[in-house]
């Protein structure tokens, strides 16, 4: 496992200045596990150390060998807390606990969010306000990670590679173990002519309903899509739940997309996987699920091929990170480049070409 020597995370303060939090590692040598340096603001130092230590409680892997030194280039005012998420992310990236997408090119990362319960991995924020502050500074390649306030996302509030999370597991699409709504996320490649190719996410939230019995498709909502696309999505999801056996008539469902304006049906496999993860009926990958595939018979669990496999493979190879699970249709297996699986494995991701969803 290769770990970066230093990591940077940025955050925009209320007065418009950009704060950079830099994290470095050095051997521990009997020192404290986290050291914070902010010139002239000892209270901010203390808060940052507390935040980082609390957030570390939610990690599976403990390592006592390194000390992480965090520093801020400018001091925020004492009442401001929007930088907390940036500190947590910088600490995780420098220890390899979180790998930002496209880690090889190291694009700037902007993070805005705070929390009253870092030890439960919860994150809060005001994504609309944060986006307004960020917009003048963003370039196309920047990664934006925002704390979620639970409000309906505004359409302009997330362009580019923005990601809103309500808990730290949401960075890899996992469900929140303490929330009453189970939300899982999966990623799918969008091909739009070379340079604009990007990974888009689909996010499925399920909530139990007491009385079933109605038509399954009326309980599924995708508020951002137009009616035709919504109908196709409902049919796909209802079909996959029919295949699952125990999915029908138990859930109220809301589906959201990172970027709702797209064409085609290659999102369906990602949608179905996110739905199965949200309903707690699928093995959980350590990283993200990146899937591409559609089907004309979801009620039989079949996965069929989709278009544009060369561009999508190149994009997936560029974006996949440690622990990610790549799911592709079985028909692509013959056309895969010879070293594709090996290259993915070298990045820590794993690949499966599937003709059927479900266990094995």
């Amino acid at each position, binding site marked *: 496992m290769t770990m970066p020597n230093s990591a940077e995370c940025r955050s925009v303060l209320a007065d418009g200045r950009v704060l950079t939090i830099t994290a470095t590692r050095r051997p521990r040598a*009997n*020192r404290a596990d986290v*050291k914070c340096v902010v010139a002239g603001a000892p209270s901010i130092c203390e808060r940052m150390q507390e935040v980082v230590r609390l957030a570390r409680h939610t990690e599976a892997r*403990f390592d006592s060998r390194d000390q992480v030194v965090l520093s801020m280039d400018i001091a925020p005012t004492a009442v401001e807390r929007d930088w907390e998420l940036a500190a947590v992310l910088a600490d995780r990236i420098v220890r390899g606990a979180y790998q930002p997408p496209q880690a090889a090119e190291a694009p700037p990362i902007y993070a805005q969010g705070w929390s009253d319960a870092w030890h439960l991995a919860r994150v809060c924020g005001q994504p609309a306000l944060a986006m307004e502050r960020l917009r003048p500074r963003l370039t196309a390649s920047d990664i934006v990670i925002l704390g979620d306030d639970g409000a309906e996302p505004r359409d302009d509030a997330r362009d580019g590679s923005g990601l809103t999370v309500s808990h730290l597991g949401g960075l890899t699409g996992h469900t929140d173990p303490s929330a009453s709504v189970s939300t899982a996320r999966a990623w799918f490649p969008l091909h739009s002519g070379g340079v604009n190719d990007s990974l888009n996410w689909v996010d499925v939230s399920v909530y139990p309903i007491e009385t079933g019995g109605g038509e399954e498709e009326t309980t599924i909502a995708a508020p951002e899509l137009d009616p035709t696309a919504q109908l196709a999505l409902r049919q796909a999801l209802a079909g996959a739940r029919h295949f699952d056996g125990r999915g029908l008539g138990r859930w109220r469902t809301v589906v959201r997309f990172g970027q709702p304006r797209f064409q085609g049906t290659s999102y369906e496999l990602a949608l179905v996987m996110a739905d199965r993860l949200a309903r707690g*009926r*699928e*093995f959980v990958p350590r990283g993200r699920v990146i899937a591409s595939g559609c089907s004309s018979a979801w009620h039989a669990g079949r996965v069929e091929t989709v278009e544009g496999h060369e561009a999508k493979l190149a994009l997936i190879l560029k974006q996949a990170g440690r622990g990610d699970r790549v799911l592709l249709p079985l028909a692509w297996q013959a056309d895969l480049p010879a070293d594709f699986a090996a290259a993915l494995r070298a990045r820590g991701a794993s690949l499966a070409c599937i003709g059927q969803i479900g266990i094995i």
Partner: protein
Amino acid sequence: MGLFTRRRRQATDTSGLGASVIALRVGDVDVAPVGTALVIFNAAGYARRAVAGRVAPGEGETVYCVHPGPYSIDLIPFAAAPELGLRLRFLIDASDPRVTQQRFDLFLFSEAEAQLSVAAFGKAIESALQSELNQGSLDLPPCTALEEWHAFRAGLNQLLYTRFGITVDDCVPVDLGDSRDFAQMLAARVQRIATDLQFKADAPGPEIAPSPVAAPSRVAARAAIRPAVREADAKSLRRLFLELPALTSGLRVLALPAGQATFQSHQQLMQRLGLIALSVGTMPSLDWAAPDQSVSALEQNRRSADSARAVLSLDEAWALLARLQLAVPMQLDELFDDADRIVANLEHHLQRRRAASLVPDVDDSADEAAAPRKEPSL
């Protein structure tokens, strides 16, 4: 002869053996049922096995009656996917002639109480499996391909044999949807969150409702020693004391490829584990800092928590041993790095357990240049 001794106690109920109970501590008057085996530990902790029959322990001996099974349990590999499980069928093998100490016997001696039930054992297996999957040492991704499943099975078998001394007979993924309903669990979560909020809203602030008796402050409540703390600490140290030598000998006999670098890292690992075992053997007691100088309850709680963390690292080390036993030479670098991490964590936790009090962290930038730092020592 013992022919005329009075029956002082009721015979232990052995009817559950093989169904809901795996092992049971038995005493003088008991008769082990047919099909079970007796594991007898002498006062020094050495185990021997005997065939079932009348139990006649010698001086200072502890006897367990063990049913070899097979047992069937349902595991949940991921806490986030409660409706999907693994059905595991395992048995406790007859003794393995290649080793001097059976791993299951060691498990019984160091971890089991008077009774080892299938449910408690299943919980231990489940937590070991979940932590391995979380850390990425075992892989069970969605839409598992057949070869990935075989790799997972091999890793799981080895883990359970190395950590618990059981042999996995069969393991299949099952749908637990009939017995566990995720929708109901979510609904229960809603209820709990609502009660929490209600509780917060109802709880009177201290200035609104002054109570006649001063409530203990938060610091005082934390400082009050819990009765379980002492037992938990003793149990952790017992596990470390008994299991570290066995773990070290397991690591020592690994068949590693020849080569100077591998040899050196292996040797270093052995040396550090030896020092750790020494540290455990000479661990100061929980409540004394020095003769005639007791430790505050707060620090005792902290010390006990640190020994519990050391035990977690010990579990990780057993899992690492299982991975090393299956490793191909290509993986060795990564595994030795992990071993370095685990051993460093053990050292760290034990050092904190030794310390009578932890001074709060101070900003060390001032003295750093002036004086060289003191390295951690035993």
